[in-house]
Structures are given as C-alpha cells and as structure tokens.
C-alpha cells in the first residue's frame, strides 16, 4: 500500500477521531491523536486496519511548547505497512491512558516512558520504574534534567 492509500483509508475509517493525518518529509504516515479517543483509535487500528504489532512506544520532550509527545509505531504483519501515532500531553501534568489492554508489549514500553519521562499511564497494572533505582527521584530523559539528581538522599 502506498502512503496516500493508507492516509485516505485512515481519514475515511476514523473520521472525527483523529486531529490530522500527515505524510512526513521522510515518507512516513503520522497520525495525530486526540486524548479522549486515543484508546478507541488504537483499538481500531489493531482490529479494523490490521496493525497487530506495536513496534515501539516512546516519548519526546518539548519544553518550549510545554508538552511531551507520546510516539507509537505500529507495524502490520497482514498488509506490511507502518504508521506512527502521536499524542500530546501537558508537560507539568502528563497523563495518558494505557495501551496495555490492547498490546501486552506496551506494559514495559510504558514503564520505561514513566521512568525516564515521568508520564503517568492511567490504568496501567504495574507502573514502576524499570531502568533507574526504585528510590530515584528524577526523570532523566527530560530536557531540564541535571545530574545532581544522581545523589540519592539517604532516607
């Protein structure tokens, strides 16, 4: 499938559920999702469009725009195509619904994003730190991170 076909299929299938669908300069289809229809959108991608593989889930920090963007990459083993889904969340109170009930692999991806960016995934069954120590206080991949946080205060 070409990118234009994927784009038009998403636009007709998910009318009103997505903010926009763009084709990037690097020839990737990027879907900008809305906070309230994020879960139904992802479920729809899996059930109706055949994107059965959550290839990656990560976040990007944009302090100037005061937002953290969740970026998911889906791959379809059925029709061999890839899409990117993005969801913005405010930086001072980042809360996003979890995808764990759709893809089990989201469990660890989301734990990692919680650990390194401090995004709270609502409804996640096991939201603990995964890379950093449990008593660590900061979120190291945020752009305003300073390394004095490496000194863990004795409790």
């Amino acid at each position, binding site marked *: 499938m070409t990118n234009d076909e994927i784009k038009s299929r998403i636009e007709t299938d998910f009318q009103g559920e997505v903010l926009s669908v763009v084709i*990037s*300069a*690097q020839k*990737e289809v990027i879907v900008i999702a809305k906070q309230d229809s994020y879960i139904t959108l992802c479920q729809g991608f899996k059930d109706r469009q055949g994107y*059965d*593989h*959550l*290839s*990656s889930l*990560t976040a*990007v*920090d944009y302090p100037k725009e005061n937002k953290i963007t969740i*970026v998911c*990459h889906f*791959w379809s*083993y059925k029709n*061999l195509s*890839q899409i*990117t889904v993005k969801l913005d969340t405010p930086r001072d109170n980042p809360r996003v619904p979890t995808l764990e009930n759709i*893809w*089990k*692999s989201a*469990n*660890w991806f989301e734990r990692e994003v919680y650990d*390194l960016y401090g995004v709270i995934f609502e409804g996640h069954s096991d939201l603990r*730190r*995964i*890379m*950093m*120590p449990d008593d660590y206080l900061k979120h*190291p*991949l945020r752009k305003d*991170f300073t390394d004095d946080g490496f000194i863990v205060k004795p409790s």
Partner: protein
Amino acid sequence: MTDLLLSRVKADDLSRLGTDDYVVNMGPQHPATHGVLRLVVKLDGETVKQTTPVLGYLHRSIEKICENRTYPQCITYTDRVDYVSAMSVNLAFALAAERLMGIEAPARAQWLRMIFVELQRLASHLLWMGAFGGDLGALTPFLYGLRERERILDLFEMTCGQRLTYNYIRIGGVMIDILPEFVPRCRSFLDYFEPKVDEYEDLLTYNPIFLERTKGVGVLTAEEGINCGVSGPSLRGSGVPCDVRKQQPYLFYDQVKFNEPLEQGGDCWSRYKVRMNEMRESVSIIRQCLDKLEPGPFEAKMPPILKAPPASEFYSRIESSRGEMGIYLVGDGTPKPWKAKFRCASFNNLYVLDALTRGWKVADIMAVLGSFDMIVPEVDR
C-alpha cells in the same frame, strides 16, 4: 504428646496445611543470564509460579548520551548497545540518520554493509549456539562455535582493526574499503564454514538429552508472540513470517535470494532450529553479495558538519541478529539528535519470559532464557 497429636493428623489434613512460596534470586551475577540480569523467581517446590525480571543493572543511559553527541559520535555508542552484534546497531543508526539528512550511500558501501552485517549474524548466532548448549549442559558446542567465530572476527579485524566494537558502518557509507585479499579469504571461510553447520547440528539437534530439555518446553503461540512484541528468530520459531529484510527491505536485500526459515512448534527447539537454518541462509546471502560487489566509492560525499533538518523524524527498522532493531531519531536542525530511541529486540523478548516459564521447573528457565538469545546491555541500554 506431640506424637499423639501427629498420629491423629490424617494425610489429607497435611495437604490442607499448605506451603509457602520460596523466592529465589537468580542473578544479578549468574552464569546463565548472559550479563547482569536479575530474575526474582517464585517457586512452589521446583515448580515456577512467577518470574519477575529486574532490569537496569546495565543501564548506561545511551539514549541520553546520544542527545548530547553529534550524529557521527553516536555511532560509537551504538556499538555498546549490543556488543555481540555491533554491526547491526551501527547499521540501524546509520540508516536512520541518512534518511533524516537525505544522504544516499553508494552501491559498494551498501553491498559491504550487507556482507558485514551477515557475517555479524553468523558470529552472533555461533556465540549464542555455544552459550545455549552450555546452559543445557553441553559444553562442546561452545568450543566449536568460538572456533569459527574467531575466523569471522579475524575478517573484521583485518578490515576495521576491531574485534568487538567496530564503529565500521558510518553515516554515508563505511569507514574504510576492504583489503584486496578480503574477498578470497571471505570466500574460503564460507566454503569452510558451510559444512560446519551440519556438524553443529550433529552435536545438538537430535541429541536425546537436548531434545528432552527443549522439545515442547516454553511454547510461545503466534498470537501471544505478536501481542507481546516478540520478533526475529524467536517469533519465526512460532511460525510467523516477520523478517524485516523481506517485509520492509533495506540496503539491497530485495536483490538477493534467500529463504525465511520458519518452524511451527513455538518451543525452545523450534527457536534453536530457526537460528541454525538462518546461518545457512546468511552464508548464501554473503556469497551473492561478494558476487555483486563492484569497484566504486565506499562513502558518499557529505557536508563537513552533518545536520538533520528541523522537526524531522524517522523510524528505521532492521533485522538484527536478535530480531527487530528499531531506531527512532528526531532532528532539530542542529548537529545533535533531539531524541534517539533504541527499540531493541531483547527488551521485548524478555517480557514473555514470565508467561513462558510458569508451571515449568526451575531448570527450564535456563532453556527458555537461552532460546531467546538475550543480550542484557541491549535490554538495559
């Protein structure tokens, strides 16, 4: 008095008393975890009730380091993400960065990259085969595997001077052209190596002890494998065609002929068999690449300072030795990436360990963990 009481307790009362779970810490220093991985295993006698992997002992924050380095400097760090298959990670990063900057590597560089990545796959699978045999008590394959791996490392050393962390595949091409004697030496190695795969299979594949430990153990169904994000040879052992080289061809993989080995069992033995067959396919790919290699430049013409355009992003997927390796890069118009995400196969493959080991004996954890070809620095990054 106690004897009197005990004699009154019936046998079925004893079973109703119940037992406590026994918690065993496997690792962080354990010979069978291939790195610094800790597993908290909850046992009922010998039977596993729950396995909880505890990660982070090798977390070096490579993603954060990359945000503070220029693109060519990052390549050095990608070596350390998966040091058993460093070429693959080099390649994934170089492809993502090239796509961001609109650089096209010349044909000779692409063929050289394919040769080295496939040689790397052989080296990685050989080490895995040895370690897997070692986990199950067969120490001979380890010596055999390292013997052939040594000759591959000699080929690498001859070309780029390094034996473990190569930094060979660069943005826009490769570090340096191969020596004239590389091609004949590589060909003679392939002729020597191809019959050796049968020898390894004689040692392990239908060995009754090996079969007993792996056949039917840790069965991963295709649906669960896809849902949990398992990829690479581990998922092909469950019969799902998922080779990125076939499905989303990069380099010149669409110009060479090779099969995608599949097994339907989903158990440890199937995952093992897929990797053994993959070695044969890699040999055939390298032969075809050597045939098609033509003289030419090995590096593209590039600006002195590499910058990605503002607000550009790309997610590049390749098939590394362990499975799907993805690198997500976000450029912001400076020489440094705004964001670099490494999607590593071992991270997702480790996630299913808990589901696969429940109900099996504690010794089967070794078989299941080994069959997934886990590399802990890739899990922790």
